[in-house]
């Protein structure tokens, strides 16, 4: 896997260097200008290669126009850069010959299983694949319809997170009482509010830092649903791949309490 990849990489770099020289001798912008590309136009760069002309065209058509370039033509061979394809279906709609067909593309693996009474669904994205939202949609779509579904979400507030939390009944924001924890919590709160989701906060390692998280939640009228104390035993259990709830009794108690709070339909 590694070797052919690095070879093609070298070829790509040499090709790019060659194009650099070409672009310097005959700037793509001038060629496009002469051929009448104007602001507001839609340009399909059929054979975009490394995109020298696509970029030049993009600067010419301006914000009102479009340039498409996930499809390239090298010699007599048409290539599709599947990594750039967002599956919008636009090329199918504009191809006059009906020559483009969509096929499913594997981007990862979906696994289901069970641990005791708990059913489990997991999606694993292939390494090198940039877009995870379709995989997240697939995971959510194959979760069985049961009384309580718990989703473990990625960090941050970008597309994968939005895709994960969309349509949930309650968002639990787990934070730490540190400047990093509080900063990222504020972003998560902003996201939850933008999406109109109900949410509450859980403070993990509650005695490890300062009191800023509590002050913030009080000012913003955000419910703190549980506090889990800092305990090295939790970190050690986790490092062995074991559950804190089954190894550390006082933590288990807090987590059971949290579950009861949620099931009693506490107002958040």
């Amino acid at each position, binding site marked *: 896997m590694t070797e052919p990849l690095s070879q093609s*990489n070298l070829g790509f770099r040499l090709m790019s*260097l060659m194009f650099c020289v070409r672009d310097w001798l005959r700037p793509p912008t001038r060629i496009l200008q002469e051929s009448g590309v104007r602001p507001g136009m839609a340009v399909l760069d059929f054979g975009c290669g490394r995109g020298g002309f696509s970029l030049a065209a993009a600067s010419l058509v301006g914000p009102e126009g479009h340039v498409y370039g996930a499809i390239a033509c090298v010699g007599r061979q048409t290539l599709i850069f599947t990594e750039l394809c967002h599956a919008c*279906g*636009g090329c199918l709609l504009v191809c006059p010959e009906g020559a483009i067909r969509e096929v499913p593309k594997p981007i990862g693996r979906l696994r289901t299983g069970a641990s005791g009474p708990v059913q489990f669904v997991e999606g694993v994205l292939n390494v090198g694949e*940039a877009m995870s939202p379709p995989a997240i949609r697939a995971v959510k779509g194959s979760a069985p319809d049961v009384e309580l579904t718990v989703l473990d979400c990625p960090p*941050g507030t970008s597309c994968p997170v939005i895709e994960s939390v969309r349509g949930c009944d309650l968002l639990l924001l787990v934070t730490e009482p540190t400047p990093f924890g509080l900063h990222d919590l504020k972003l998560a709160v902003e996201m939850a509010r933008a999406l109109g989701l109900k949410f509450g906060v859980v403070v993990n390692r509650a005695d490890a830092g300062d009191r800023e998280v509590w002050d913030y939640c009080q000012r913003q009228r955000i419910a703190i649903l549980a506090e889990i104390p800092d305990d090295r035993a939790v*970190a050690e259990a986790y490092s062995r791949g074991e559950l804190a709830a089954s190894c550390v009794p006082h933590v288990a108690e807090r987590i059971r309490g949290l579950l009861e709070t949620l099931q009693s339909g506490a107002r958040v």
Partner: protein
Amino acid sequence: MKELVVISGKGGTGKTSVVASFASLAEKAVLVDCDVDAADLHLVLQPRTLRREDFTAGSKARIKPGHCTACGKCEELCRFDAVYFDGPGNGKVPKTFRVDTIACEGCGVCFDFCAEKAIDFAPAVCGQWFVSQTRCGPMVHARLGVAAENSGKLVTQLRRTAQQVAAQQKRDLILCDGSPGIGCPVIASLTGASLALFVVEPTASGQHDFLRVAQLTMQLGVPGAMAVNKADLNGEVTRDLEELAGQRGIAVVGRIPYDPAVTRAQIARKTVVEASDGPAAQAIRSLWAKTQERLHLSLPAAVGGLVQLAAQE
């Protein structure tokens, strides 16, 4: 010019604490916070902003309610379930269509096929990026709007700006704080870098995520070095991690012990090496020395990166 990217795979392993400490140990570096989804480096380095720019990437569709005839073509064509039939009415129809900007992927298909030209498709401001001054040197960082996309493009923008700053100020090292995961922003922060430093935790999930991100750096041709943070939490997993790294040609450059001084430094808004001289601080100092050695060895990838950058310009 060398570019060191600190990544982890898993979140919360202490990447940013290591980068901040490196920043105060490095003499002539430009700092970049590539973790644009949840940028934290500025909390420790407290930058003074010198330059502020809007980041626009991609476009978002917006239906002009006055022009919409509710034909439903946009809803039919949208592959991202971003069109809803709950917009305000106008003189012609009681209800119009509306685009959910968070769900909109920005493909422009609805805009192209709207017979009434009732759809606007304008570039969206996804966030802001900054060039700042900190006590440890210049820093390039960003704030991405909530639910904004194109974080990979923003990362590329930050790295390019950092390269310009480094060239102007004759600084020979770019120090990047990467983001967790293996997705689009991580790929954007690694492409063409001189060295990737993995900061990993000796946990089952830390190990799993390390293997995935190590596979990514191999695919991208970026040499790697690894340090285990909180190494004493689980000696066995730490040894496993180091062995796995060795098998993949990733140099093991240090172990950082579990030390409450790290959290205390963060609360004091200081870097670990500024705030303490305890076991973690000492480990980070020696880690920095070893990482510098690796940086000087990583010539081939740097040359490859330069060719790639030259090609992009």
